[in-house]
C-alpha cells in the first residue's frame, strides 16, 4: 500500500508533459519596453548627480553670503572689542597646541577656531555690541537733540499737534509741528492750513492728513463741524472708523473742542458702515493717564516717536515702572531701560524727584535722553510741572542740565515741516 505509485520515469514523463507556456506579446512591444527601461536607467545615472550638484550649488549660494557677513561681523568684532578678540586668539592658540596638526593646517585651524570663538563671543555679546554700536553712533552723530517741544521752542511760534496713526494702524502718534504765529489766523485755521504740509510718509507714519473733510469751527460754543464728501474713506472698515474717532478726539483735546457735528455734503450726519448713522461725536471721558513708549517706525537706529498709551495707574511710580516693559501687542518699546532703577518722590505740588540707584547707568547718550523725555512727558500727564533727576553719572544729558529741575515738555514728537 505504501509502495510508491510513481517511478522516476513516470515522474519525468509527467514533467515532460507540463504544457509549453508561451509569451504571446509582440517582440516589438517587448523591445520597446526594454528600451524604455534601459533609457530610464541611463537617465537616472545622470539625473541624480545633477540634482545633487544643483543642491550643492544652491547651498553654496545660501551659505557664501552668510559666511561673508559672518566674517565681516567678526572683523568688526575685532575692532570693537580688541581685548575680547585677543582672549579668543589665546583660546585658539591653545587649541592649536592640542591639535598638533601640520604647520599650515594648524594655521588654518587657528583661523577657523579664532573666528568660531569670535562668532560665539559675538553671539553672547551681540545685544551689548548693538547697544554700544548705537551709542557710539549717536554720540558721534549729533549733540543729541530732544524730540519734544519745550517752552524755549515757542518764541514766536505756534505748536500744532496732529494725531497720526502709524502704518499698522495700531497707535496714534501725536506729532507736533511749529509754525509761525499769525495774528490774522486763529489756531484752528493754522491747524487746518498746516494739515496738507505734513510729511507722514517720511516720518514712517500713515498718510492720514489732510483729512478729507471741510471744517467749520464755532469757537464760542467750542464746536466743530466736520463735513465729509459722500465718498469719504472713513467708513471702509471698523478700523478706519475707530482711527477717525481716535484722531478726532485727539484733535478736540488739543484744540479745546467739546463737540463735533458730523455732516455729509451739507446734510446732517454721516452714515458709518459699522457705527451706523451718527450726527455728532463727543469723546467719552477717559480715565487713567498717558504713559509714553517708544515707537520705531523707521528702524531701531532712527529717532523714536514717543507714543502715549492710556493706562489706569495709581501713581507716577507705577507708571514709570510700566514704562520699562515692552508693549509688543502695540509694537511699542520700553521707554525706560530695564536696568535703570530709581525712587520717585513728590517733593511739593507739581514737583517730582527721581533718584537713580547707584547701579543705574545714566550717561549722556541719545537713548537716555529719550528715556528722560518719556519720563517728562508722563510726568506732565500726571500734572507735574518739573522733574528733578538725582544721582545720575553725568550732569548734563543733551540739552538737559540735571543740576536743575527740568520743565516738562509742551508737546511730544516735534517734527519739522518741509519748507
Amino acid at each position, binding site marked *: 500500500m505504501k509502495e510508491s505509485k510513481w517511478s522516476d520515469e513516470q515522474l519525468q514523463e*509527467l*514533467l515532460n508533459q507540463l*504544457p509549453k*507556456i508561451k509569451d504571446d506579446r509582440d*517582440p516589438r512591444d517587448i523591445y520597446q519596453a526594454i528600451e524604455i527601461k534601459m533609457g530610464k536607467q541611463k537617465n537616472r545615472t545622470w539625473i541624480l548627480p545633477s540634482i545633487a550638484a544643483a543642491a550643492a550649488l544652491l547651498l553654496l549660494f545660501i551659505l557664501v553670503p552668510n559666511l561673508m557677513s559672518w566674517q565681516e561681523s567678526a572683523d568688526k568684532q575685532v575692532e570693537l572689542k580688541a581685548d575680547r578678540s585677543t582672549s579668543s586668539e589665546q583660546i585658539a592658540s591653545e587649541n592649536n597646541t592640542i591639535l598638533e596638526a601640520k604647520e599650515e593646517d594648524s594655521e588654518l585651524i587657528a583661523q577657523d577656531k579664532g573666528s568660531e570663538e569670535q562668532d560665539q563671543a559675538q553671539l553672547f555679546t551681540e545685544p551689548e555690541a548693538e547697544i554700544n554700536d548705537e551709542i557710539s553712533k549717536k554720540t558721534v552723530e549729533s549733540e543729541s537733540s530732544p524730540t519734544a517741544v519745550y517752552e524755549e521752542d515757542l518764541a514766536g511760534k505756534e505748536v500744532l499737534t496732529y494725531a497720526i496713526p502709524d502704518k499698522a494702524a495700531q497707535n496714534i502718534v501725536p506729532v507736533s509741528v511749529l509754525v509761525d504765529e499769525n495774528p490774522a489766523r486763529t489756531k484752528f485755521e493754522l491747524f487746518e492750513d498746516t494739515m496738507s504740509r505734513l510729511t507722514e510718509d517720511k516720518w514712517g507714519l500713515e498718510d492720514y492728513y489732510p483729512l478729507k473733510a471741510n471744517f467749520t469751527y464755532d469757537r464760542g460754543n467750542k464746536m466743530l463741524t466736520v463735513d465729509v464728501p459722500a465718498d469719504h474713506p472713513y467708513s471702509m472698515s471698523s478700523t478706519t472708523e475707530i482711527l477717525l474717532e481716535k484722531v478726532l478726539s485727539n484733535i478736540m483735546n488739543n484744540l479745546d473742542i467739546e463737540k463735533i457735528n458730523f455732516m455729509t455734503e451739507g446734510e446732517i450726519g454721516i452714515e458709518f458702515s459699522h457705527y451706523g448713522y451718527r450726527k455728532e461725536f463727543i469723546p467719552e471721558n477717559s480715565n487713567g493717564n498717558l504713559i509714553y513708549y517708544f515707537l520705531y517706525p523707521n528702524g531701531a537706529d532712527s529717532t523714536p516717536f514717543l507714543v502715549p498709551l492710556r493706562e489706569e495707574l495709581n501713581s507716577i511710580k507705577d507708571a514709570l515702572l510700566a514704562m520699562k516693559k515692552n508693549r509688543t501687542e502695540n509694537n511699542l518699546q520700553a521707554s525706560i531701560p530695564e536696568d535703570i532703577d530709581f525712587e520717585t518722590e513728590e517733593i511739593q505740588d507739581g514737583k517730582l524727584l527721581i533718584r537713580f540707584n547707584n547701579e543705574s547707568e545714566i550717561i549722556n547718550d541719545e537713548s537716555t535722553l529719550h528715556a528722560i523725555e518719556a519720563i517728562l512727558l508722563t510726568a506732565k500727564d500726571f500734572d507735574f510741572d518739573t522733574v528733578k533727576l538725582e544721582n545720575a553719572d553725568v550732569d548734563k544729558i543733551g540739552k538737559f542740565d540735571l543740576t536743575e529741575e527740568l520743565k516738562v515738555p509742551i508737546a511730544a514728537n516735534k517734527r519739522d515741516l518741509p519748507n
Partner: protein
Amino acid sequence: MDSVFDELYKKYHQDVFQFLFYMVKNKELAEDLVQEVYIRVLKSYEKFEGKSSEKTWLFSIARNVAIDSFRKQKGWKQRIMEKFDWSTQEVKDVLPLPEEIAVQREEIQLIYRCLDLCTIDQRLVIIMRYIHELSINETADSLGWTESKVKTTQHRALKVLKKHMEDFKVKEGMDNEGIKVER
C-alpha cells in the same frame, strides 16, 4: 530593432519565458522578468566570450533574474506577513492555475503544484532537466555547478516530488474514506 535582441528573441525567447514562468508561476511576473533578462543580456553581450553556449549563458542569466525576484518577493512577502499573519496561506492559494495548466489532467496539475514544495535549487534542476530537456552538462553549465551536484539535486528533487504527490493522494484517499465511514 536591435539585431542582437532580434536574434536572441527568435532563438530563445519562448524557452527563457517558459523557464521563468515555471520558476515564478506567474505570467505577468515572468513577462517582466524576461525583459529584465534582455536588459542584462544586452548590457553584457560584448562580455559574452562564448566559453559556454549562448543557451546556457541565457539560462544562467534567467536563473539569476529569477532568484533576484524571489529575494525581492520574499522581502515583500515577509513585510506583509508581519502585518497580516493570517493571510499568508491565502496569498499562496489565491494564485490561480494558469489556463494552460488548468486544462491538463489531474496528475499534471498535481505535479505542477508540488513543484512549489521543492527548494529553489531543486526546482531549477527539475525545470531545466525535464521541462527544457537540457543535458546534465548544460544544466551544470547554466547553474555553474558540477555535474555530480546536478545529479544529486535532481535525485533529491524527484524524491521530494514523489513524496509530496503521494501525500496528496493519501490525503485525498483519507478524505474519501472518512466520508465513507460516516455513511
